[in-house]
């Protein structure tokens, strides 16, 4: 039996754990404010809040309910738009009304929910973050300017937010209804565990539920989010260990990683959208084996390894660059799951950079994405280099030959131009919805140049490359 709190009501259900939360909310609970726009996480009309209890403290995040299996919300507080309604309108809703941020209204509950998630989460509110919280919501009517104005109004109202008593402050200031204050206590009484003996491994659901909702609803599923041992990011002296159920948000907001990688947050913004990052896992991105997975390209650039487990026991470790055999073909048995991802913490003098270009800068799948990690020593000799690139072959590529060519040589525009020839020989792009083969080749070169120009703006001038 799956148990959770939906708005202010405790739900106990024997319905299929693989049913989507969206279908449950709309057609079982008959809460029709949560809308269906695409059923693939690309529009945000179905956004809900998920509240998770963490040492007596409740943390809320936005999520696309269309890709969330019911089992994943066991023990959580699920909030639909109806659960955000106060007497009259809450501050976020009022801001949308006051700035005419709603026209046809179909996307509106999703936008309101995302911005409410921001109100719940933010520390020092600012407009650009508030706008960013709605990066997973698509509106076809307004042109977004009125929604930006709503975000500005909300940001202003959030200025006095008391971080220590945030739920209390938010209820008192009419951001959320008062029942929220009782939720942590209620959640603590729900059973933590859920019988989970299924077969097909599923993490956040953000990949498999895009195309296989109907099959998954009745499949035997192994919910990785129910396994405590798969949570969290750990560090040793020299290594970062990302456990399988780590979400993209956790990965990018990890304070240690943020301090190690300058610009880690701006990389995050390029990866999917807030509600998807909140539920999608790092390991899931690797297992998906898309030739263009952003996290895969980032981790390839970090020269990561993965630990494959069988029946919850670590079985073997493979280099990420050896995991991919062909298009969507993994060097992994069906019984194996990716349980950990490990990479060496970069040396102090190492630099890392990620580039991605797609039709739409955010919330889009790359035409080409690429990561580069590099270390130079005296006189600009390259002592370590890892370069990955996606969208230019059947698998996410680790550019072995390009890196080998560069290693030990002195970095210069001439060397970079020479190495592009090797890069071009390593890749084999095809024409598809993300661009023609010729475009991807050109883009691969441009983004490769961009790595060096961004990392060494004084040494590597674009004029010398182009």
């Amino acid at each position, binding site marked *: 039996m799956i148990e959770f709190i939906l708005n202010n009501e405790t739900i106990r259900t024997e319905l299929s754990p693989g049913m989507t939360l969206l279908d449950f909310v709309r057609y079982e609970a008959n809460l029709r404010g949560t809308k269906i726009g695409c059923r693939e996480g690309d529009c945000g009309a179905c956004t809900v809040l998920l509240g998770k209890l963490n040492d007596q403290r409740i943390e809320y995040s936005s999520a696309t309910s269309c890709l969330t299996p019911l089992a994943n919300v066991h023990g959580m507080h699920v909030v639909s738009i109806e659960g955000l309604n106060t007497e009259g309108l809450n501050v976020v809703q009022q801001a949308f009304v006051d700035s005419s941020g709603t026209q046809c209204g*179909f996307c509106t509950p999703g936008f309101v929910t995302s911005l409410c998630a921001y109100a719940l989460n933010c520390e020092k509110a600012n407009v650009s973050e508030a706008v960013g919280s709605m990066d997973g919501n698509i509106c*076809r009517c307004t042109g977004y300017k009125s929604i930006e104005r709503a975000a500005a109004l909300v940001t202003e109202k959030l200025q006095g937010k008391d971080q220590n008593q945030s739920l209390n402050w938010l209820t008192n200031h009419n951001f959320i209804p008062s029942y929220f204050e009782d939720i942590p206590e209620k959640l603590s009484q729900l059973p933590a565990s859920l019988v989970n003996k299924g077969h097909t491994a599923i993490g956040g659901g953000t990949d498999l539920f895009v195309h296989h909702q109907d099959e998954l609803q009745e499949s035997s599923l192994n919910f990785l989010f129910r396994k405590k041992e798969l949570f969290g990011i750990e560090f040793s002296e020299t290594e970062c260990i990302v456990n399988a159920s780590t979400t993209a948000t956790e990965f990018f907001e990890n304070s240690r990683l943020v301090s190690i990688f300058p610009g880690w947050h701006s990389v995050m913004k390029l990866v999917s959208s807030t509600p998807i990052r909140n539920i999608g896992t790092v390991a899931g991105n690797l297992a998906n084996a898309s030739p263009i997975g952003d996290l895969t390209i980032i981790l390839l650039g970090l020269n990561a390894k993965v630990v494959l487990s069988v029946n919850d026991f670590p079985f073997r470790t493979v280099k990420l660059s050896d995991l991919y055999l062909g298009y969507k073909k993994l060097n992994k048995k069906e019984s194996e799951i990716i349980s950990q991802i490990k990479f060496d913490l970069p040396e102090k003098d190492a630099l890392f950079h990620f580039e991605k270009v797609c039709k*739409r800068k955010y919330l889009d799948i790359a035409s080409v994405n690429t990561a580069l990690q590099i270390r130079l020593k005296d006189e600009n000799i390259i002592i370590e280099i890892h370069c990955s690139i996606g969208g230019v072959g059947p698998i996410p590529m680790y550019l072995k030959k390009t890196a080998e060519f560069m290693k030990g040589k002195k970095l210069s525009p001439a060397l970079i131009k020479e190495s592009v020839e090797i890069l071009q020989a390593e890749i084999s792009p095809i024409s598809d919805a993300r661009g023609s083969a010729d475009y991807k080749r050109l883009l691969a070169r441009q983004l490769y140049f961009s790595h060096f120009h961004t990392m060494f703006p004084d040494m590597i001038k674009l004029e010398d490359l182009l």
Partner: protein
Amino acid sequence: MFNEQNAHFKKGVAVQPICFGISFTNTMMNHARALVHIYQDGSVVVSTGAVEMGQGVNTKMLQVVVQKFGVGAENVRIESTNTLRIANTSPTAASAGADLNGKALEMACVSLWERLENVAAEHFSISNLKIQNGMLFDGFQNSGNNWLDLIQKAFQLRVNLSEHAHYATPMIHFDKVIGKGHPFAYHVYGTAILEVTVDCLRGTYHFDKVQIVHDLGKSMNTHIDNGQIEGAVVQGIGWMTLEEIIYNKEGKLITNALSTYKIPDIYSVPSEINIKHLESQGHEMAIQKSKAVGEPPLMYGLGAYFAIRNAVRAFNPDAEFEIDAPYTPEKVLMDLYKGR
């Protein structure tokens, strides 16, 4: 200046004037109906042939009634569009929904008002009926009676408190055979200036600013009309930039989902959209002289194509470019490096 100082970012500007004719070009479609019931408790319900799809037509319909009757908005309900209540509707399209249905609604309200004036004159001795906030005035003189008193009296007197009205746009005609006539009730004008910055390394771009002067006549609702303008211009820019429909040679749609067909998101819209209303007299055939607004501003977006082209040309002045919208980041990058 910017373009001279920046080797790898180029700005492009385009001016985009528009002129758009209002009316269905098929003259026979330019008519509409409205039905108004005033119930004995004073509440009012309205049906028209207009379909609400976010453009705010129901709000404009409500304004017509509230302004005519002088009652609060809470007294008026705009009902669904229903073929039993309103027959033979033209689709809500051609930017003409508010004009056609609003004019019919005005006519219905005028008829009801005339009957109510008679009741007021005969039974409340009000010769010059005005209603404000539900109170009946004789000129500027508060009569002490209210809307409900008036309606109940009218009901007692067996006055018809329902009205169905029909409006057909006057003057318009068009001879399809010779291709001449006067097909449009009026035209909507405006001009936009669009400014874009192209990242000439990556082929990506962002619109910095769109400045619009738009001819709304006498806007009856600036919240709604500005929303229509902002939404339309972004939709137009989307069409000219990101939104690319791809069918393969076999006729299969390749961009068949939101993951492959990209419309603007909150980050990809212009940093600034400034809208100025042109001080114009409006047009008699527009509802309350408030010109139709649904479609015209979309065409400001066309300038997006030419703004990008100007930026690309600043980087690559000598190449020959095709004109093939949308100007996706792919086409931009290919043009930037064409022949280089």
